[in-house]
């Protein structure tokens, strides 16, 4: 230590040693004398005269070069020594006269006399600027990167740790922690962060990188931390040091877990998607099947109706010719033939209804009134063992449908319900206003909007799912052979689809069946119901000329015969071209064009259009067994068009022709 003079060789040697050790100066503070002595390096650092170091200066000089921010702290520290403390170890900044600031570590000792009174305070300054900067960088690296460091020496119960390390684990900041405390934060079942060397040795630590699930000590939150490190072997003790870092990887772990979960559920989601797709495909296949069958049956029905027109027409003619005085047996045979033909006609009608090719004549319809009007019909069709209840709300919306077809459909459903309740039960027919909102779960065939729902519910035997899937197929029936045609429900389906609605079916084996038909609400304001004109056979006059166009010779012959019988003058044509020639010939007035719709070459509607160019105001009556799209739009007759469906009878043809001419 730098003593006051004299300077001796020992002191010089000591100074050299201290300089080599990195000491930047020494001091000797005489507490009782109130003087401060220092060596040359201290003088240089403080910008003092080295000579004054030997003679001593006032003690306040000690603080003169200390950075203003550290001065108060150092004054307190020195006060401790002056007050009797023995150990002094402080770091502070010293500002040299040239302005450079260096970090110094001052290490000193308070010397006491035999009465424990403080005598002197000696110490030395070591330049720690470099170390301070390194520490600063390390500290910033740790706090900015959220990285905590640790060093564990093999065999020790504690590990040296950094503040950031403690923070990561939610422990109170300190420099040393028992290994057990560190490992205590790890969740059960996970390996320890710092393995017990006694038990595992170096191999217990490897691999050096690892991830640990922990419960933070302070807030109990669950986190993931990763450990990376190195083993440094101590050659002389055969031991090792484990030096490493710890950092939080919770975010990565959570993301990883989410990804894993997504991956795990992928299969289930694909399965779900496939099932959905299969359902959609089944529905599409079903729809396509129905469409194909519809086209097929529609085609058959067309030819069939032509044949029936001939059969019915000719039976009609023979019956009329036979007159009242004919052979009664022949008359009965003719009547039976007529009945058979009519049944065939009604069957064809149903086929067409299913194939959605029947011409509908929609009218604004009050379902409540329609149901009320059906009560008589229902009671007659349904056995007494079944109670019938019809429920309609007073504010039921109007709809626009073909009322006859709706009646037909409801009757069909009622009869099916009856057949499902062989031992009696209850039949409920209910109508309600329903608004269907757009939703992703809505099947594609359901259009959102306002509907009137007509539900027919029975308490009968119900249906199994596989039966339910087939009920709308034409010719599918659960009834005994001969009891049903298998066209009832398919007709209902075709009618409702053609009317812009849809059908729902709910059934369970033994728990009854409900079939709901949804028909679109009629736009407000157009609700009026027209009365049907009565059909009567009215005669014609010779002054009235009718042009009959029909490609089927037999049908044409029959039609012409009836019209002539009725008293009309008739011109006939086998196709559109011939008809146009007749119209063009400038022949006398033609009052009505009666034409088939489906003909080779020119269609009936095309002919009508061209005829009207030649003779504006010409009245046109179409006949058809299969109208397809020729004169229909969206399954309905175009307004202003008149159609006589095939097969027609003497009476129906007479009435329709007369009505048109008189209009």
């Amino acid at each position: 230590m730098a003593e006051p003079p004299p300077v001796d060789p020992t002191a010089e040697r000591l100074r050299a040693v201290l300089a080599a050790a990195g000491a930047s100066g020494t001091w000797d503070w005489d507490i009782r004398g109130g003087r401060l002595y220092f060596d040359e390096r201290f003088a240089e650092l403080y910008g003092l005269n080295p000579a004054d170091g030997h003679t001593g200066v006032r003690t306040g000089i000690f603080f003169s070069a200390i950075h203003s921010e550290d001065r108060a702290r150092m004054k307190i520290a020195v006060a401790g020594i002056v007050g009797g403390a023995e150990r002094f170890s402080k770091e502070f900044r010293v500002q040299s006269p040239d302005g450079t600031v260096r970090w110094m570590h001052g290490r000193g000792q308070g010397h006491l006399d035999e009465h424990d009174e403080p005598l002197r305070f000696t110490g030395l300054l070591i330049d720690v600027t470099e170390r301070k900067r390194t520490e600063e960088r390390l500290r910033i690296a740790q706090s900015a990167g959220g990285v905590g460091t640790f060093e564990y020496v093999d065999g020790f119960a504690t590990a040296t740790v950094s503040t950031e390390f403690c923070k990561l684990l939610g422990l109170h900041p300190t420099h040393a922690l028992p290994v057990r405390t560190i490992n205590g934060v790890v969740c059960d079942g996970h390996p320890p962060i710092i393995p017990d060397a006694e038990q595992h040795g170096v191999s217990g630590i490897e691999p050096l990188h690892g991830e640990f699930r922990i419960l933070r000590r302070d807030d109990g939150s669950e986190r993931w931390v990763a450990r990376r490190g190195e083993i440094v072997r101590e050659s002389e003790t055969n031991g090792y040091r484990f030096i490493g870092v710890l950092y939080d990887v919770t975010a990565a772990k959570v993301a990883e877990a989410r990804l894993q979960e997504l991956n795990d559920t992928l299969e289930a989601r694909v399965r779900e998607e496939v099932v959905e797709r299969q359902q959609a495909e089944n529905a599409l296949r079903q729809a396509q099947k129905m469409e194909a069958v519809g086209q097929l049956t529609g085609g058959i029905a067309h030819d069939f109706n032509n044949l029936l027109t001939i059969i019915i027409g000719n039976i009609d003619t023979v019956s009329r010719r036979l007159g009242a005085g004919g052979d009664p047996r022949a008359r009965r045979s003719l009547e039976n033939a007529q009945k058979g033909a009519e049944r065939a006609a009604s069957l064809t009608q149903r086929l067409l209804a299913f194939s959605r090719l029947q011409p509908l004549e929609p009218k604004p319809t009050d379902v409540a009134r329609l149901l009320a009007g059906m009560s008589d019909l229902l009671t007659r069709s349904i056995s007494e063992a079944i109670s019938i209840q019809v429920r309609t709300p007073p504010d039921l919306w109007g709809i626009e449908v073909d009322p006859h077809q709706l009646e037909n459909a409801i009757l069909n459903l009622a009869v099916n319900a009856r057949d499902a309740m062989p031992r009696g039960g209850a039949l409920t027919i209910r109508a309600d206003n329903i608004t269907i909102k757009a939703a992703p779960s809505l099947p594609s065939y359901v259009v959102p909007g306002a509907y009137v729902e007509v539900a027919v519910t029975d308490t009968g035997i119900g249906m199994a799912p596989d039966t339910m899937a087939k009920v709308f197929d034409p010719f599918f029936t659960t009834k005994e052979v001969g009891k049903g045609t298998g066209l009832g429900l398919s007709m209902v389906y075709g009618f409702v689809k053609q009317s812009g609605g849809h059908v729902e079916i709910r059934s369970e084996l033994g728990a009854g069946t409900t079939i709901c038909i949804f028909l679109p609400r009629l736009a407000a304001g157009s609700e009026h119901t027209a009365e049907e004109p009565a059909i009567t056979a009215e005669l014609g006059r010779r002054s009235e000329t009718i042009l009959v166009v029909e490609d089927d010779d037999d049908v044409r012959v029959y039609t012409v015969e009836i019209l002539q019988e009725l008293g009309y003058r008739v011109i006939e044509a086998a196709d559109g071209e011939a008809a146009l020639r007749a119209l063009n010939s400038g022949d006398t007035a033609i009052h009505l064009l009666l034409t088939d719709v489906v003909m080779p070459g020119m269609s009936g509607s095309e002919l009508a259009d061209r005829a009207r160019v030649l003779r504006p105001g010409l009245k046109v009556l179409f006949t058809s067994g299969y109208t397809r799209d020729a004169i229909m739009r969206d399954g309905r007759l175009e307004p202003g068009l008149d159609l006589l469906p095939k097969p027609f009878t003497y009476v129906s043809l007479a009435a329709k022709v007369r009505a048109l001419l008189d209009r």
Partner: protein
Amino acid sequence: MSADAISLTELETDALTEIVNIGVSRAASNLRKMVGAHVLLSIPAIEVVSQRRAARLISEREITQLVAIRQDFDGPFSGRALLIFPESNSLELVRAVTGGDLSPQEVLDIEEDTLAETGNVILNSCLATMANMLQRSLTMTIPEVLRGDGAKLFDVWEGSNSDGLVLFLYIDFAVRERDIRGYIAMLMDLPSLTALKTLLGEFIERIVGDDG
């Protein structure tokens, strides 16, 4: 009441550390006379924490049972002072203080008395120095030896609502080549800590004066 309700500034912490350092130096000097060997004591750090936190903190750092010497003090600030060692260190301390020539049984026999005496010297020196440096006077009760975990020493138990503040000081011992670590804890309530804070402010004012 929590540790956040009151805290010491950096300078106040420094000042208190130095004051306790003086007290510890006195204690070391007294112990030297008592045991006839070189004794070094130092106080590296000081913290103000809540009672619960103190209990948790010590249990994080010490995994064995603890032994403590307790003395209550009364004056301008009053409370309870504890000198705490890990139990494993306590016999070590007794051996260091008694000179190490005793049989294990003898060490056990005098353990309690030796601990009480050593604790008394250290705590008394610290508290007396504090009183002296802060220019006040304190009275103290006789020492008492306790054993248990952090919760027991700091009177923390489930449902307890008294959560006072603790001045937590780490203390390093070096006696006869033995390194022994311990803790000095001073439990005070809020008014006492506020009074201490005021006295520390006056002390700093005296030392640092007006030149910052």
